């Protein structure tokens, strides 16, 4: 086997340090996953915001957007509502109601292969057997080959094995007070934790929908453990100490 085709460990080592921190507007990954609770729409909203941020320049050429839900996700969180969608998506959205997770994966793959779609959003409840590492890898490869970003929202799911390039844990965050009525809910905000990413260091952000662009404020981890925190990833420090 010819090993010269692979990147050497020496070349790989500095990548971890040089890799820029994630920020909005950075061309992100083609395949991301967003873990969220099933009792809120925060997951889908953050996924839409991330995908819009990623596809900002291409929305003119690629006319439509696909949103696929399986039956369980539909029952948990309901259907998309046209007048509540972000303005540029209202006339672009095509909704697919898949019955089973298998159908959902089929629809996602077909969507990712379509050259007229700006991005594909999937919404899947729980950890179905159909979405194993092979299926996830298949989606990653298809998305990267055809250049259509895919964001898969996982409702009430455990962090299983996946080949998604960026994996987020998202929950709703208290919104900033609006200008005129301080007692009313303001523009949506989400607490997003990037717990596994291929090209970025993990971190936590408060994402806000600032009109048309996505804004992110970084939350610094309280005591900075430096490299230790990086190496640990999404496991707790206590687990290692014990």
């Amino acid at each position: 086997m010819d090993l010269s085709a692979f990147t050497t460990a020496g070349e790989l080592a500095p990548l971890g340090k040089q890799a820029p921190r994630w920020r909005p507007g950075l061309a992100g990954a083609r395949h991301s996953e967003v873990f969220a609770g099933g009792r809120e729409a925060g997951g889908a909203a953050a996924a839409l915001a991330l995908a819009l941020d990623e596809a900002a320049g291409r929305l003119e050429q690629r006319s439509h957007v696909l949103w696929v839900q399986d039956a369980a996700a539909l029952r948990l969180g309901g259907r998309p509502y046209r007048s509540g969608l972000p303005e540029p998506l209202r006339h672009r959205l095509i909704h697919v109601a898949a019955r089973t997770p298998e159908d959902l994966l089929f629809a996602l793959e077909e969507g990712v292969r379509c050259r007229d779609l700006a991005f594909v959003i999937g919404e899947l409840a729980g950890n179905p057997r159909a979405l194993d590492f092979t299926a996830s890898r298949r989606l990653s490869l298809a998305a990267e080959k055809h250049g259509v970003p895919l964001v898969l929202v996982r409702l009430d799911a455990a962090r299983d094995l996946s080949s998604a390039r960026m994996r987020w844990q998202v929950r709703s965050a208290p919104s900033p007070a609006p200008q005129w009525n301080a007692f009313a809910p303001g523009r949506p905000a989400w607490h997003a934790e990037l717990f596994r990413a291929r090209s970025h260091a993990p971190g936590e952000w408060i994402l806000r929908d600032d009109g048309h662009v996505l804004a992110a404020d970084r939350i610094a981890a309280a005591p900075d453990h430096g490299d230790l925190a990086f190496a640990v990833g999404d496991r707790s420090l206590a687990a290692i100490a014990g």
Partner: protein
Amino acid sequence: MRLADARALCPALKTAPSDPAGDRAFLETLALWAQRWGPWSALDPPDGLLVDVSAVAHLFGGEERLLADAQAAFARRGLTARLAIAPTAGAAWALAHFGPERAILENPPRDGEGDRAQHGGGGSPHARRPTEGPLMEALANLPVAALRLDDDVLTVLRRLGLKRIGQLTTIGRDALHRRFRSRSPEANPLVRLDQLLGRLAEPLLPVVAAPDPLVQRRLMEPIRHRELLDRVLADLAADMARELENKALGARRLELGLWRVDGEVIVRRLEFAAATRAPAHICRLFADKLDAIDAGFGIELLRLRASWAEPLALAQGDIEAGVETQGTTLAECIDRLSVRLGEKAVRRPVAYASHIPERAQRWQAPLAPEPASQGELAFHQRPLKLLDRPETIAVLYATPDGFPQRFRWRGQVHEVARVEGPERIAPEWWREKSTARLRDYYRIEDGEGRRYWIYRQGLDGDGRGGPPEWFLQGLCA
């Protein structure tokens, strides 16, 4: 008479809903079928047909035999028809409706071969002028209703005492002309009389069959295996693409018929989101539908028919070959999705004119044009997602007509931290019953930052039911 009155008179009455469009379509197919007796036929809505049988009768052995043949053919199909042959369309109509059974009006001898008509009449668009004498004699005794006039004109004629066609000629043309000045033939007895006698031309619109694009393959050996079937299907799809390209059409619906050796016919249908004629795409979509086919002793004939086609011009291919080969188009993607998941699964939300949130959005086919609608009002924010059915929540409130302090939804308690509302949406009285209750919507955020859209149905003491109920309808971004 209303249906309830009729039922009271005759309880055993059988009723069927009226279907004008279906009747019309049936009449059109019947007109095409009736071209077996003449080179062209025309519709006479709502229940008549005109067939041109000029110089045709000898093929059936005379006009009597022709009419007998037609009567028998209609009877075999369970249809009752009154038939007549006459030199003009008007005369044939008059005889078919008011004349004797299977009346035949001989052509005047001067013309030799004239225009004949059947079942309601007929006549060539280039009306020749038959001799009027014998024609008038034969028709003089028919009632004026045989002139195809409007009801109010008939009333006027009846009040004038003109009951038979022959009586119209007893008073002068000028007298009639003074009273009936309308240009439309239905309101002017003089025009109708002239058409009846062949003095005026009466253009008719012939029915022309537009055959669906169709390709078929007859096989020397019946096929029983899937690989062969796929190969034949690929050939058929290529043939169909050529056929459609010749006519500058694209298929929206394709029907594949498979004739088995034992006489069974298996039909598989395919609908496309947009007009297409790409053979590879057609084959791929049919492949999913052919899995469950039982070939029995073999399939000996395959036929592909485009029963719904739309104009599709030749298009310039993309300059970059890579763009064409990489990825599918949107229409292809939607076709693949709807073949596997069903027609109803792939849809697009469109706005609909209604105040009630769940009614303000409808779903339609993804590539159908969006219906025209007013711009959306930006006063109020709407939730990102709407539950299919609003879910009941148990609330704790300070005042009955205020917002809740906390509520329980799906077994968990949410503390309300911030709230905006109420946004009052009154029931649509033009759609709903008078007991429908108004809704007060609140946009709320709970202690953890989760945002919801809840509403109270009704007011305390509005006289439309018990205490108001609370529902959670939407999940905000």
